[in-house]
């Protein structure tokens, strides 16, 4: 029987099935960080259970880490206790950890692919909803709660009910100045924040094939914002070329590539749902509300509210319907996160900022997704472009995406942000967030107001 990509990966990981019980699913790679793991380790310790497969577990510090230089010394006491606890437990259990002193420190979803730990066809979990990022490699990757972190530490397995496959097809090629972020924001506006609930998205079509691995990671990253369990892209030559030579890939890489070539949806396989979008008609996107689905093309007016939810959102955002956001003054620009904190994203922002200045009164932060991204960006001189423009060039971490490390908005401030969530107060109490691509964020920093990067032209 023909199978979808999702079915193939799921079926290969079934350990046990029993009527009336969820499937016992094997987990190939378990990523952990400081915020959602302490209670899981405590649970294991209470039961006296060891970590079953430390070698299939990898830890980073990212959520509450400082993006100012100074390491642990500059972390607030509560965050510091979490970081120290993670370090101690990784040492006790023999788990690889990329702490603040590691060359490979950074956001978990940036680091694992960089190290070649994310493999096509693998199951990857982490106590973080943006684990969907790893689906860009054709992995089945999803976020889990802390009880499940404990389950995986104890048994390397999870109890899961089978989600349904959902094809998201992007036909046509991207227009100039349009990125993966714009594609996914357009998709979420189309299907809604609950549109993917109970499903795993598989992204197909010409525009997806045309994306780099970094773009595919951005696309899969925000699958959760449509409510989907995961997002996946079938691996291809780009995937294999990205992975080749990275430390965490299988020893018999050529053999692995041969197996991975079979990871595609068979002709005639059926999806539970399908949606097709014409990528060539998608313009740069921007959100105006308090969910990622509340968005428009950058030059479109904010729509009239059609529900209590959208009225509340406009009220919170202090925005008026009927007007486009273009030209609306901004206070802060944040470029970074597991959505848009990779090298390609920084290049895109630098391309706009090169030879230009961040507008007076605007605070612009550029936070690389990892130390490796930071080194690569500095090797190209991107940091000089950012610093000359008047932006802050920071240390890697989750930073202002979720504002738990002190990088945050002041009440009432409006941020243009390349992160993934514009929820009320997400970037700081009473802060307001407009989600955009790195190019739009950089253009808005220069304009001091929401700006369309396509009107800037390139100086590169």
């Amino acid at each position: 029987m023909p199978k979808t990509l999702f079915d193939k990966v799921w079926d290969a990981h079934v350990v046990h099935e029993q009527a009336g019980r969820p499937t016992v699913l094997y987990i190939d790679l378990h990523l952990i960080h400081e915020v959602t793991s302490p209670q899981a380790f405590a649970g294991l310790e209470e039961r006296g259970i060891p970590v079953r497969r430390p070698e299939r577990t990898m830890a980073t510090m990212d959520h509450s880490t400082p993006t100012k230089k100074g390491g642990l010394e500059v972390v607030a006491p509560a965050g510091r206790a979490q970081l120290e606890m993670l370090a101690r437990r990784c040492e006790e259990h023999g788990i690889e950890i990329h702490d603040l002193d590691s060359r490979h420190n950074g956001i978990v979803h940036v680091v694992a692919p960089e190290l070649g730990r994310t493999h096509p066809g693998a199951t990857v979990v982490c106590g973080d909803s943006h684990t969907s990022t790893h689906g860009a490699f054709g992995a089945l990757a999803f976020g889990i709660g802390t009880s499940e972190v404990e389950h995986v530490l104890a048994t390397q397995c999870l109890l899961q009910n089978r989600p349904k496959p959902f094809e998201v097809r992007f036909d046509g090629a991207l227009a100039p100045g349009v990125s993966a972020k714009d594609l996914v924001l357009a998709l979420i506006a189309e299907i809604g924040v609950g549109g993917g609930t109970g499903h795993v998205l598989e992204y197909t079509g010409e525009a997806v094939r045309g994306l780099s691995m970094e773009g595919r990671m951005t696309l899969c990253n925000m699958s959760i914002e449509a409510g989907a369990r995961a997002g996946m892209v079938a691996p291809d030559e780009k995937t294999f070329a990205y992975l080749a030579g990275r430390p965490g890939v299988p020893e018999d890489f050529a053999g692995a590539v041969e197996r991975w070539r079979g990871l595609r949806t068979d002709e005639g396989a059926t999806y539970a749902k399908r949606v097709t979008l014409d990528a060539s008609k998608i313009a740069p996107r921007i959100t105006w509300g308090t969910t990622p689905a509340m968005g428009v093309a950058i030059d479109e007016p904010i729509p009239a509210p059609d529900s209590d939810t959208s009225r509340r959102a406009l009220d919170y955002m202090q925005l008026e319907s009927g007007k486009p956001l273009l030209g609306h003054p901004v206070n802060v620009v944040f470029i970074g996160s597991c959505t848009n904190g990779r090298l390609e994203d920084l290049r895109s922002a630098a391309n706009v900022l090169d030879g230009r200045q961040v507008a007076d009164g605007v605070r612009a932060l550029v936070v690389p997704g990892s130390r490796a991204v930071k080194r690569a960006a500095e090797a190209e001189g991107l940091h000089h472009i950012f610093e000359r423009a008047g932006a802050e060039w920071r240390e890697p971490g989750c930073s202002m995406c979720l504002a738990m490390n002190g990088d945050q908005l002041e009440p009432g401030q409006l941020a243009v942000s390349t992160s993934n969530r514009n929820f009320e107060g997400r970037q700081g109490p009473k802060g307001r967030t407009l989600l955009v691509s790195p190019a739009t964020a950089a253009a808005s920093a220069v304009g001091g107001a929401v700006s369309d990067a396509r009107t800037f032209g390139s100086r590169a």
Partner: protein
Amino acid sequence: MKPFSTLTSRLIPLVRDDIDTDQIIPARYLTVTDRSGLAEGLFSAWREDPASPLNAQGCAEVLLAGANFGCGSSREHAPWALIAGGYRCVIARSFADIFQGNALRNGLLPVALTAPDHEALVTELESNPALEVHVDLSGRRVTWGDREASFEVDDFARECLLDGVDSLGYLLAREEQIRAYEERLGAS
């Protein structure tokens, strides 16, 4: 985990769609290494409004929300905070996947009602704020006044909730199958 069988309670109305986990418990409360202090963070931004029904909880143990409750982050601190705040059940139109699983694993019952049942309950509560609901997990029923609504819950999660046991025991008991799978994995 505390067993859950039946519950009779007043309802706190928070009938909005897409209530995300950042509203339930903002990230700045996630620096704990245990489950303490989360009640303080529960809906902390919305509770700043003295008129919020969240501030008139009294001994109510049921929250009534709209569609897609618990969307956003995978933080299990969201159900922990609701439980710490005295809630044992959330009735909504629908739930986000990760939140629903996290809630069930902690003894917080997510009840998704059909649109007509949900609308009837919201309307009834508007006219009678002291309305009590009776939630029966074993029979998968919610009753109020003379109305009865059924809801779905995964069989396994239901058994775990009724018995007050967590699901790790089931996984640990699959040791033989897990070992066999790992042997196949090593051989391939």
